[in-house]
């Protein structure tokens, strides 16, 4: 399988002095979709922010590698230029900056040169129609006055335009109605390729019916307590986080007793 596109080793992250992630390991190989599930407060979004390098999320241990290269201390823009992308759960509005302007500037920053305007336009149009978005949205200000669903679509849209090697999607499914969910899932599937990898962070199993993960992880209290195939998600759905958690605790206490 070669080297992982994204590798996380023993990652510990603290926010304002409080440790949230307590040793997380992940390895996403080319062509893989991983789902990371977990209850509220388990540290899912912390992982997303830490991977992207948010300054408030301080790495206190472990490391992050992108395509084999360590990026643990890289700035967010360096990470983006190396091929990492984060679809935000709550993307912030940038009034006065059009989506088109953002994408043109981002594409230039990431690809190191300005794409010919015609080519960029064509790609934008294609991806917009794939996400069933009106092209007029390119003239709107970034996330400004967007509905919840529009924001999520716009995040996925940016991913498909910028074509990162590794995309982290932070609860992209939450707040989408079933029709929008199908459309967004379709775009994610169209984006997935043997040369990239996706980390799908979600609270619910719902989106996994449309985007099939190769590996499912369950994050509880800042640690991955279970990893496995799609059956892990189904098990979660059946028993709930509480059920899985109790089982994990049982196993741990048994281990402790040996």
């Amino acid at each position, binding site marked *: 399988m070669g080297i992982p596109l994204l590798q996380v080793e023993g990652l510990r992250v603290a926010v304002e002095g409080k440790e949230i992630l307590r040793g997380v390991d992940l390895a996403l190989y080319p062509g893989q979709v991983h789902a990371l599930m977990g209850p509220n407060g388990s540290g899912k979004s912390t992982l997303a922010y830490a991977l*992207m*390098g*948010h*300054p*408030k999320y301080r790495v206190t241990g472990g490391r992050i590698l992108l395509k084999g290269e360590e990026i643990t201390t890289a*700035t*967010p*823009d360096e*990470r*983006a*230029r190396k091929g990492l*992308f*984060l679809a*935000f759960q709550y*993307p*912030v509005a*940038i*009034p*006065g*900056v059009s989506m088109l*302007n*953002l994408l043109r*500037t*981002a594409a230039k*920053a*990431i690809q190191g040169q300005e794409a010919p305007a015609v080519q960029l336009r064509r790609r934008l149009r294609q991806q917009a129609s794939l996400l069933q978005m009106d092209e007029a949205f390119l003239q709107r*200000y970034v996330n400004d006055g967007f509905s919840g669903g529009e924001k999520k679509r716009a995040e996925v849209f*940016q991913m498909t335009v*910028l074509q990162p090697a590794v995309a982290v999607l932070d609860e992209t499914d939450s707040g989408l109605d079933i029709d929008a969910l199908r459309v967004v899932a379709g775009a994610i599937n169209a984006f997935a390729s043997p040369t990239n990898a996706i980390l799908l962070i979600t609270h619910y199993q719902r989106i996994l019916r449309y985007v099939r993960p190769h590996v499912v992880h369950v994050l509880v209290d800042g640690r991955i307590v279970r990893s496995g195939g799609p059956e892990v998600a189904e098990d979660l759905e059946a028993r709930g986080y509480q059920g899985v958690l109790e089982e994990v605790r049982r196993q741990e206490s048994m281990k402790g007793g040996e």
Partner: protein
Amino acid sequence: MTTTRPQIDLGTYKYGFRDEERYVYKAKPGLSRRVVEEISDIKGEPQWMREFRLRALEIFLQKPMPTWGADLSAIDFNQIHYYVKPVERQGHTWDEVPEYIKRTFERLGIPEAERKFLAGVGAQYESEVVYHSLREDLKKKGVIFVDTDTAVREYPDLVRRFFGTVIPPADNKFAALNSAVWSGGSFIYVPPGVRVEIPLQAYFRINAEAMGQFERTLIIADEGSFVHYVEGCTAPVYSRDSLHSAVVELVAMRGARLRYTTIQNWSLNVYNLVTKRAVAYEEAVVEWIDANLGSKVTMKYPSVFLMGKGARGDILSVAFANTGQHQDAGGKAIHAAPYTSSTIISKSISKGGGRTSYRGLLKIYEGAKGAKSMVRCDALILDPFSRSDTYPSIEVEEEDVSIGHEAVVAKISEEQLFYLMSRGLPETEAMAMVVNGFIEPFVKTLPMEYAVEMNRLIELQLSGAVG
């Protein structure tokens, strides 16, 4: 997202170059009756103007320094050269302008802009307008666009009718100073029904050290006419301070529309103390679009007096204060007639210890029924060393009015920077994008060429790089 201590970096100011002084006449520093008479003599003015100046001088000497705004205590009126005449006569082609002055304006891009997108250009260097042109077709329609000294000679009736009526010398200390020693500036008259679709521009350049530039601009848009006037200004970087104190009077007659755009980019040793006021008669529209990027201290509050039914005034101002700068700016709308409307939008950005203040007045007189006004000031503070204050003042004497007022002070959000950086933009580029977005409502009112220049100036201000 590191914050560094502010450092003076004059290197980002790209217009700081200077020419050697080769002047026809340069007044000795300091202000006196004699200096005022000298200026009047050199100009060969009519008696009424000479008397106007001398009366204004008395008022200037009597009035105390204003203490309610920015700190002006370091201005030394005795150190300033009040009049500097660079050339014998004005050119109407660039070839008639002395080579070294022409080169300066070429470096500032003026002749090129003129060829590309302007209908007329005035270029003032020190105290005098050294170049002036207006397209033939506009001349034929009766449009007048000359420097104000020429206007006093050639259009005495028009000038006497309006000069000093919108801003009398006694208005404030610096209006009095200007009235005493004024020189240059633009005079525009647009006849009834004539629309000047392409902007007219004036460019003001201070070159000498410790120089005072006191241009005087008067624009009259006659009934149903339209004109857009743009002014820009720069100066070299010196250790001794210069003073720029202009007076700008606008008159929009019934149904006229007058748009006045300023991109002020003085060097950091210029005190910029300007009085700008417009009167708008019935159904007339006046728009002040005012950007203050440069100068050490700016105090400027473009005003509109809405004198006729249905008149409208829009004031849109942008201020950027970097290290060592205080931009005290805003706007005033005075409603003195029914169904008048106004908007005052102020956007300010402070960085590196810079300070911005919004100071504004909304006044609605009794009887101005159905008046509408919206005042909004947004301040963006880019680091913990910088500062922004608002001093809004609202006086309403009429009950049947609709008023909105909103003031928002925002720190540049870490989340916005992180978001843009996560899209591959380095921190300074991300910051420039947020700031340019912030002033977008202003930039989109500019002709395209100025909009591009404006965004570039903002990036330069934020880059912190030398060169």
